[in-house]
């Protein structure tokens, strides 16, 4: 075990895989000489050279399309997007091409490409840099969507994403890069499609992922002081979703709150709620609650940003609602129940 940051864990995953397999290369804006916009590729150019750590012109639909073409020759590209917000410039390549080429060609072409980069809000970056877009990619058949919340998961999941023969949307938490954690040494992988119980509890299940998982854990800690025992489940892979681990938890706690960073409408949380009510209908003691961003493009001003983003008080309020407990006292921060 080593103590690594989330960023270092991702770097280690890429380096170990590239040492193992010559067909893997990293491409994107600023990945080489600048050492990565978020320094995830620190030292990789020096280690692997310009043929395998490739700085590109600023054009997402260019290097995403180039990655797709390279994958068709049997190479395994890792395409870094400076942020998932910019993937919208390349949406035709990802949705109309990467996701569908295997199927449209009758299985003739495989598409072993990883698209990775940060997603979610990172604090005062405004409407075009703060989106949580996992719902969009999770809705497209042919794509896998992976969102690690800890350094250990980041390393283990990225290694598996690189080895996968299908296109993987790998969304890193922009506010998680500096988070430290224990990471197993060597070639330890985390399978795609397997959820993880990040905290055990008996009274209520919270399902959350990426940055929001860490906020949910904080809320669970506060609630523990009030003798409310919360279980926190991290799907880790949004698609394919490991429903069973979530259902097992809800069957134990009989209550469920889904916390996500993005907007509510048609989001991943809505899908989880639909599945939990169908699979755990008789086990539920309360309607499932959701906590998510309000449906406003992200404002810049810090106070406004905080108002619309899920936080510990809102998560606590949701847990108390599903437990039919009185909400916090009126002098605390005003709560807004989000439908």
């Amino acid at each position, binding site marked *: 075990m080593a103590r690594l940051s989330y960023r270092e864990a991702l770097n280690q995953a890429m380096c170990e895989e590239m040492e193992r397999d010559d*067909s893997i*290369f990293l491409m994107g804006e600023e990945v080489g000489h600048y050492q990565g916009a978020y320094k995830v590729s620190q030292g990789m150019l020096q280690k692997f050279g310009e*043929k*395998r750590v490739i700085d*590109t*012109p600023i*054009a997402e*639909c*260019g*290097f*995403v*399309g*180039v*990655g*797709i*073409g*390279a*994958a*068709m*020759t*049997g*190479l395994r*590209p890792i395409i870094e997007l400076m942020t998932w917000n910019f993937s919208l410039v390349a949406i*035709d*390549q990802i949705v*109309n*091409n990467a996701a569908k*080429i*295997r*199927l*449209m*060609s*009758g*299985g*003739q*072409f*495989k598409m072993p490409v990883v698209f990775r980069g940060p997603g979610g809000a990172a604090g005062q970056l405004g409407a075009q840099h703060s989106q949580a877009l996992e719902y969009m990619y999770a809705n497209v*058949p*042919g794509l*896998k969507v992976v969102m690690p919340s800890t350094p250990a998961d980041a390393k283990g999941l990225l290694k598996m994403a690189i080895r*996968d*023969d*299908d296109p993987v949307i790998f969304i890193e938490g922009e506010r998680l890069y500096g988070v430290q954690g224990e990471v197993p040494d060597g070639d330890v992988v985390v399978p795609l*499609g397997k959820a993880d119980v990040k905290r055990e509890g008996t009274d209520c299940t919270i399902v959350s992922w990426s940055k929001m998982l860490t906020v949910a854990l904080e809320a669970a800690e506060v609630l523990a002081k009030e003798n409310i025992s919360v279980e926190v489940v991290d799907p880790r892979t949004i*698609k*394919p*979703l490991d*429903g069973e681990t979530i259902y097992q938890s809800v069957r134990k706690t009989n209550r469920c709150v889904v916390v996500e960073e993005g907007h509510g409408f048609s989001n991943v949380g809505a899908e989880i709620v639909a599945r939990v009510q169908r699979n755990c209908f008789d086990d539920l003691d309360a309607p499932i609650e959701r906590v998510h961003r309000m449906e406003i493009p992200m404002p810049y001003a810090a106070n406004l940003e905080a108002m619309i983003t899920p936080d510990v008080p809102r998560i606590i309020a949701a847990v108390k609602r599903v437990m039919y407990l009185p909400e916090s006292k009126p002098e605390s921060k005003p709560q807004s129940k989000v439908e």
Partner: protein
Amino acid sequence: MLAKGQPVPIAGTDDEPFSILADDGTIRPGTDAPEIPDEQALKLYRGMLQVRLVDDRMMKLQRQGRLGFYMLSMGEEATHFGGAYPLRMSDWCFPSYREPGVFFWRGYSIKDYVNQLHGNIEDPVKGRQMPVHHSANWLNMVSISSPVGTQIPQAVGLAMGAKISKKDDVSLVYFGEGATSTGQFHVAMNFAGVFKAPCILFCRNNGWAISTPGNKQTASKSIAIKALAYGMPGIRVDGNDLLAIIAVMQDAVARARAGEGPTLIEAVTYRRGGHSSSDDPSAYRDPSEPKEWEAKDPLERWRRHLESRKLWTQELHDKYSQEITEELMACVKAAGELGNPAPETLFDDVFAELPPHLEEQKAEMMSRPRPKPAHGGH
């Protein structure tokens, strides 16, 4: 080779497109024509004739309601074979949707072609794609994309991949002049130039993008001239002159293979039919225009060339026509009788392995009574 400070060679940009064959099929004096052996010259003729005959029959089937959709190549056949001929089989081709001749030249059979259009049980893409969207990995022919221009960055990526893998293979990507208005064309040109990708970017400038004429597509003098800004040679060639296309392609392939980077080729031709079976061009263009281009027919020009080489005879033409038609009719008959893809194949190839959520959906689907198809084929 582009050395520093030297102008980028742009052939034929301001003048008539580069041409070798005169209308009567003879070689223009002073031009350096590539040598095409007799057997290959006849094979190219038979190939273009096959595209013409297959197109004619398939369009009729579409009009009879037996195919959902079709796209004609009439008058543009030389661009298919001129592009395909100089490649070797380890090279790659990213077609758009109007180059069936490239598939045929590389070994795609009429049977594969007709079965794809029918989406039946022997369709190489298993009934997944619209008609005309072929895919043949075994021939290094990449899946056709409906949104125009998406294949251009991919072809550049494939070429860069070949370079990374230390192979000297090249990629050839086709697109219409309409696709040059997309962002994808421009990013791909830029990437190809910056990375010296061994890629040939082949624009079939056929004058019309559905109802949009070339002069509404760009204010540039030509498509080829755009190469100048991206630091690569741009060549404007007569798209109905098979020999001239082969000549510029051979140059471009040699440069790419030698590590000297990409080339943009603009083949000036004309879309004599509609955009697709869903389009009626009489609504937007003067019917005299396609008539004028009939006189510049690429197949007829190549025929005259073969005649000048004493290779072409009416008997040989009739023999080819008969062979192709017989094969075609047999394939059409067989395709109509073949069954549809089995419902259980529906979930194959979404991913390499079936994930649990699709296993569940497949089991649920298979447990339902099967709906009867409206009728046998389409």
